[in-house]
């Protein structure tokens, strides 16, 4: 703290006395860089350095015990030509993203519209709907989900009451992934809150004018709500998709860390974890991490490219 005080008191120093541009530069920039220091250290030592290191490791064979052995692009080649579990994990993750994100956002938007415009009890409903998002990724919720969809769980005992004998959702590879999709949709609360904030920005008189002109609610939704909300929809879409690509805990807990049954819940991150920390193929896992970055980057870039067709800014 003493350092901050001495370094960042430009006005107490004799200006120009120290001479030279260096003193001037320190006087003008010293305080800024001192406050920035924690992040700068973190950025170089814990983000940029490790990221570059993992890029290098992705071209090596590295088991943590002996030094990394450079093998060129073999890790990447193996991924696409000789690794059925990689293909399985890509497939599982894409299905999960493609189902959970649109469903979650549709649900979030629908509920936000029902909640819109300062209705009575709004804080209560909003809190209830938000709660699952907050508890979201804890192990306890994954435990709960396992029991909900177990062979003798809540879902099946409800189904039994209407005479349906449900399967064992979790241990059936045809259904296990969908239980995770349901879990994700259940956590629609945080995009809903963002939608609510966005809806509040739309002037009420636009709807009033539209009503007077005889526009049906559907038309109002398509012509007013969707266009004016499109930046928020876009934002939620990108954030939720990236989060969905990174999902880990539910699949880990529900499958006991295996990604089973028959790789049906082998999320990409779970596969990466197994390669790194169960089999200690650190080089291969680094390559997997970089492929994830590329996938997310391509997705984000592609999303931004499409914005000019459907996202309206400042209309």
């Amino acid at each position, binding site marked *: 703290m003493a350092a901050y005080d001495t370094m960042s008191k430009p006005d107490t120093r004799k200006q120009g006395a120290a001479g030279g541009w260096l003193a001037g530069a320190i006087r003008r920039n010293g305080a800024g860089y001192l406050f*920035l220091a924690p992040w700068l250290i973190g950025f170089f030592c814990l983000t940029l350095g490790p990221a570059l290191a993992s890029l290098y490791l992705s071209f090596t064979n590295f088991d943590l015990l002996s030094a990394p052995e450079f093998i060129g692009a073999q890790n990447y080649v193996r991924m696409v030509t000789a690794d059925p579990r990689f293909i399985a994990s890509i497939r599982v993750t894409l299905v999960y993203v493609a189902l959970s994100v649109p469903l979650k956002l549709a649900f979030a938007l629908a509920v936000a519209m029902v*909640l819109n415009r300062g*209705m009575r*009890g709004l804080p209560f409903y909003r809190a209830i*709907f938000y709660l699952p998002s907050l*508890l979201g990724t804890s192990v306890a919720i994954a435990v709960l989900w396992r029991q909900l969809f177990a062979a003798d769980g809540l879902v099946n005992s409800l189904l039994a009451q209407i005479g349906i004998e449900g399967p064992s959702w979790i241990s059936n590879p045809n259904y296990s992934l969908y239980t995770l999709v349901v879990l994700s949709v259940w956590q629609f609360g945080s995009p809903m809150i963002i939608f*609510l*904030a966005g809806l509040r920005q739309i002037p009420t008189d636009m709807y009033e004018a539209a009503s007077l002109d005889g526009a049906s609610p559907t038309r109002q939704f398509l012509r007013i709500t969707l266009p004016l909300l499109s930046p928020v929809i876009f934002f939620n879409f990108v954030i939720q998709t990236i989060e969905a690509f990174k999902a880990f805990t539910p699949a880990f807990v529900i499958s006991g860390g295996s990604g089973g049954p028959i790789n049906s819940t082998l999320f990409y991150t779970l596969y990466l974890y197994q390669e790194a920390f169960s089999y200690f193929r650190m080089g291969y896992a680094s390559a997997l991490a970089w492929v994830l970055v590329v996938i*997310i980057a391509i997705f984000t870039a592609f999303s931004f490219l499409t914005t000019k067709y459907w996202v309206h800014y400042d209309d």
Partner: protein
Amino acid sequence: MTDTVHDMPGRRSAYPRLTGGLRHAVLIAISFVMVYPILWMVSGSLRPASELFGGDAGLIPSQVTVQAYRDGWFGLQVNFGRFFVNSLIISVLATVGNVIAASLVAFAFARLRFYGQKFWFALMLGTLMLPYHVTLIPQYVLFRELGWVNTWWPLILPKYFAVDAFFIFLMVQFFRAIPRELDEAARMDGCSAWRIYRKIILPLSMPVLATAAIFSFIWTWEDFFGPLIYISEMSQYTVQLGLRSFIDSSGTSSWNALFAMSVLSLVPIFLIFLFFQRLLIEGIATTGMKR
């Protein structure tokens, strides 16, 4: 199909199809479905072990007992009290680090001027999008070289270097909205940057500091991946790891004890939610980030 619904005086509902009563009915039904699984878990945790949960989708146990809590608490070689203390220490230290580091850095970005500011800010925003998997393995190697595997350092120390750009971004947004005249007046009076940070910005920023602290605490508390890779000795476990090994050791035989410990693990988050939900909701609405 009437358009005469007024939710508030002078305001007209944009979506007149759902009239007041019906709207509440729909919302209550959704709320019920949303919360039911959690209530079912709480109810399950209060049932005797003999009462199998299959066949009973109801919420009322035939007999209420806290036996499951006793069984769960002492269910592993190390009792859950230890895990709670561990999680609490880690979460508090991580939260302190996050708030201090992020507020310092956000102050630099929002209130100071220095060469390269825009460049660093853009880089900082860039790291928001970067999946942590990219840094995972070299970080693991680094902490392993330092002899920190099986300690809490890898879970705590990075927070003191503001590695989670979300918190910086959150605070920059808030700091920028504080009138600049305050800084300028203080600067005229010969205040250093440090004093402006301490005496002007921080006191005016309590809401955003609290929001950051709450999110930071909850995310550290719920973090599973970090402890999973760094901590292997049971006496060092967090609550989330404790739950996980409880699943492995007990199978489905003592599901009610598992439920009991799951419920307990959610209690701190639930309490925070109860007292600070406004801050949480505003935090999400303003930055629009994450969960």
